[in-house]
């Protein structure tokens, strides 16, 4: 049985989209298909009107597992995209210090100040996940694909990072696609939320989020917010039942 | 039946015909011996094999035996029967490269001289006896497989080797027979003996009758081979599935003629030694290395197991 089927999902440029759905419904698969990391056994993936044949360039991606390269320090792991993506690639050698400073400031933003010299396996699970987020951001991609980037974090750290993402989105107008199982997270951050169901993975609901931006953490305590989360819960409950 | 392990000096090729004949015609069996014959990779190998006790009897180079005994005193292995009255050591050159039968023609030439070669090991004797100054000669350590091909190609002017192998190999490489010059060292004052039957001390002391029987059987094999080389070679071919009869027969004929059935053998019978010549050989061996303790003739060779003289006639 295919993991995802007949799945249609439209995200505008500069939009912040969130995908929610029960565990195992095909969210990660969707992300990998969309970026061309996996190829469909049958059928085709169309992005921007064109069939995806090779990994799309210029996406920043944070995987569900942090998968840092164990032979590089955290800092070197974060600098990795710069060694690949132009124009940084050709600039990296000469402007090393500048880029390192940028990586350090990103680390500081996610609460890992001064941990760059450690190897990934010397970091805690949540720290690795945050470092992996830094890696997705360092080259300032136009499209960010985040697969449960805050799954291993406590609520405080998580909320801090929400704000970091919110500000980043506001400042740079990047397109962000966020996979999450935290409905509050989706409601707080996204412009549009897609609910997926399992076996085969399909979009069962699409919901625009109309809260004005910039949003403050306080809105998560408003009744409208609770209502939205409740509505999403309903969709997911349905999606699970269907499976 | 007494089991006897016998180590040849080399593969099953023409020169091993006497032993193959003795096996096939049951001469060993008739003496109450159950002989197994194994090949070896060179005429030095049987010496250490016999000395180690793995083998009872070997067919190997007596000059190496002398040296081995000197290096390892107390092993007590001895030569009991001479097979090659003259050693096959030779310098083989090409007329077209300026090599002639004259020793002086060797001056300034380039030689293929495998480090492990038995013939090259006698160079110090050859050089001393013929008063050669070899400072102008170049000796290249080439492996056995390339020795003759390099001579055939003209990469070297001459090689050290055994007359019967190198000559035949060169011919099969397409070098015309009249371009090949063989300088057998024994024609140039190198008075060594060649391969002999060697027995371990243990075997000789514990089973002297078996040794005598063994030599009688070999003697018969030699006589049969001399009489009918062609059918003797068949016994070899049977044991070597890549050997070609005509080649092996030629090889055997050369060995018989040049090394085994020499004028001295025709006169005095096969298998024995001329003590004076043997003593001289011991002196000459002293030119190739320094004795720790120079042996006497009796230490190296004993004729006590040889068949009676009248049984050792070969013509």
């Amino acid at each position, binding site marked *: 049985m295919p993991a995802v089927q007949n799945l249609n999902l439209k995200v505008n440029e500069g939009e912040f989209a969130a995908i929610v759905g029960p565990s195992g419904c095909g969210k990660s698969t969707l992300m990998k298909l969309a970026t061309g990391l996996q190829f469909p056994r049958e059928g085709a993936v169309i992005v921007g009107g064109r069939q995806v044949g090779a990994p799309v360039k210029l996406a920043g991606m944070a995987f569900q597992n942090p*998968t840092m390269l164990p032979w590089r320090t955290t800092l070197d792991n974060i600098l990795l995209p710069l060694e690949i993506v132009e124009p940084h690639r050709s600039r990296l050698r000469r402007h090393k210090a500048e880029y390192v400073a940028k990586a350090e400031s990103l680390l500081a933003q996610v609460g890992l100040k001064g941990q760059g010299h450690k190897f990934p396996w010397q970091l805690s699970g949540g720290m690795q996940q945050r470092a992996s987020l830094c890696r997705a951001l360092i080259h300032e991609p136009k499209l960010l694909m985040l697969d449960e980037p805050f799954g291993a974090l406590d609520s405080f750290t998580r909320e801090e990072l929400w704000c970091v993402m919110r500000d980043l989105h506001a400042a740079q107008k990047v397109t962000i696609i966020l996979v999450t199982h935290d409905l509050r997270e989706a409601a707080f951050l996204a412009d549009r939320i897609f609910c997926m169901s399992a076996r085969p993975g399909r979009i069962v609901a699409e919901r625009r989020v109309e809260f004005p931006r910039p949003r403050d953490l306080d809105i998560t305590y408003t009744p409208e917010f609770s209502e939205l989360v409740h509505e999403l819960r309903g969709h997911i409950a349905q999606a699970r039942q269907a499976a | 039946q007494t089991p006897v392990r016998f180590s040849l000096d080399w593969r099953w090729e023409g020169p091993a015909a006497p032993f193959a004949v003795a096996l096939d015609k049951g001469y060993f069996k008739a003496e109450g011996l159950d002989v197994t014959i194994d090949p070896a990779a060179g005429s030095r190998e049987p*010496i250490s094999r016999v000395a180690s006790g793995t083998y009872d009897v070997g067919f190997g180079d007596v000059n190496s035996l002398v040296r081995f005994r000197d290096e390892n005193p107390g*092993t007590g292995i001895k030569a009991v029967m001479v097979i090659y009255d003259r050693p096959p050591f030779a310098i083989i050159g090409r007329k077209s490269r300026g090599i002639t039968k004259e020793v002086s023609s060797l001056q300034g030439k380039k030689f293929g001289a495998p480090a492990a070669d038995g013939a090259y*090991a006698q160079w110090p004797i050859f050089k001393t006896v013929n008063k050669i100054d070899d400072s102008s000669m170049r000796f290249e350590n080439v*492996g056995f497989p390339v020795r003759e091909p390099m001579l055939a190609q003209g990469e070297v002017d001459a090689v050290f080797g055994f007359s019967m192998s190198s000559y035949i190999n060169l011919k099969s490489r397409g070098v015309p027979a009249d371009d090949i010059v063989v300088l057998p060292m024994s024609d140039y004052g190198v008075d060594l003996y060649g391969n002999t039957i060697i027995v371990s001390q243990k075997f000789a002391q514990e089973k002297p009758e078996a040794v005598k029987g063994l030599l009688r059987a070999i003697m018969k094999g030699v006589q049969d081979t001399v009489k009918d080389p062609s059918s003797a070679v068949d016994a070899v071919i049977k044991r070597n599935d890549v050997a070609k009869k005509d080649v092996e027969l030629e090889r055997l004929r050369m060995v018989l003629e040049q090394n085994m059935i020499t004028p001295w053998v025709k006169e005095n019978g096969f298998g024995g030694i001329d003590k004076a010549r043997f003593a001289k050989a011991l002196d000459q061996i002293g030119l190739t290395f320094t004795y720790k303790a120079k042996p006497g003739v009796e230490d190296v060779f004993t004729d006590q197991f040889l068949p009676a003289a009248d049984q050792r006639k070969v013509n």
Partner: protein
Amino acid sequence: MKTRNQLVFAPWVFTIGFFVLWEVLCRVLKISSFILPAPSTILWAVWEYRSQLTYHAFHTLWMTLAGFGLAVGFGLLLGMLLGSSRLVNAGTYPLLVGFNSIPKVAVVPILVFWFGVGWVPPVLTAFLISFFPIVVNVATGIATVEPEMEDVLRALGASKRDIVFKVGVPRAMPYFFGSLKVAITLAYVGSVIGEQNASNVGIGNLLTRASAAFEVPLVWAALVVLAVLGVIMYAVTAYAERSMTGWAQRSQMAA
């Protein structure tokens, strides 16, 4: 830090123990010195022939290093190619395996024909005999990279070459260093074979001459020198390994 000390002493203890055992066995079983000389005899021969041994050993060392260097370079490159292309892998492995099933002794004569007696055949033999383990291990290392690690780079639109260099090669380093231990010993064997058949100097040449002259202790002395050279090279490699693949050696099993 008791275990640290133990680790430093272990090689010495084992090695010396081994030689003592050998010595004792030789004496008790009265093994004659032309079969297997006792270590004391060998050591004596090493001392007696020290100047020749040193001279020839240096020559062999050079031959080996040259051949080994070639093997490392070529092995890495070919291993990367084989590890990153299934097609090339399927196509060339049979040839490589076939070539390697051939004893190199058989190849030396050809080298002598083409390059004459001298330094080329030993170097080339060392190279030919030792590159294969490197190729195999590097290729295996690259082919077994976890796809999750690749994805990190593929998501960035990295070229295959980038992926091979940034993920494949570092991931294959433990494999690579493993193969070096095999390759260095083979390289010694190769240069010795080359020297035996096509050189006027070197341990290989010395070996043949010594064994032709029944100088068994000298033969063994030469072999021991070879072994010592091999161990030295191994120590260098192991040092490089420790400093370059420390990240992979975190297992606590090996305690």
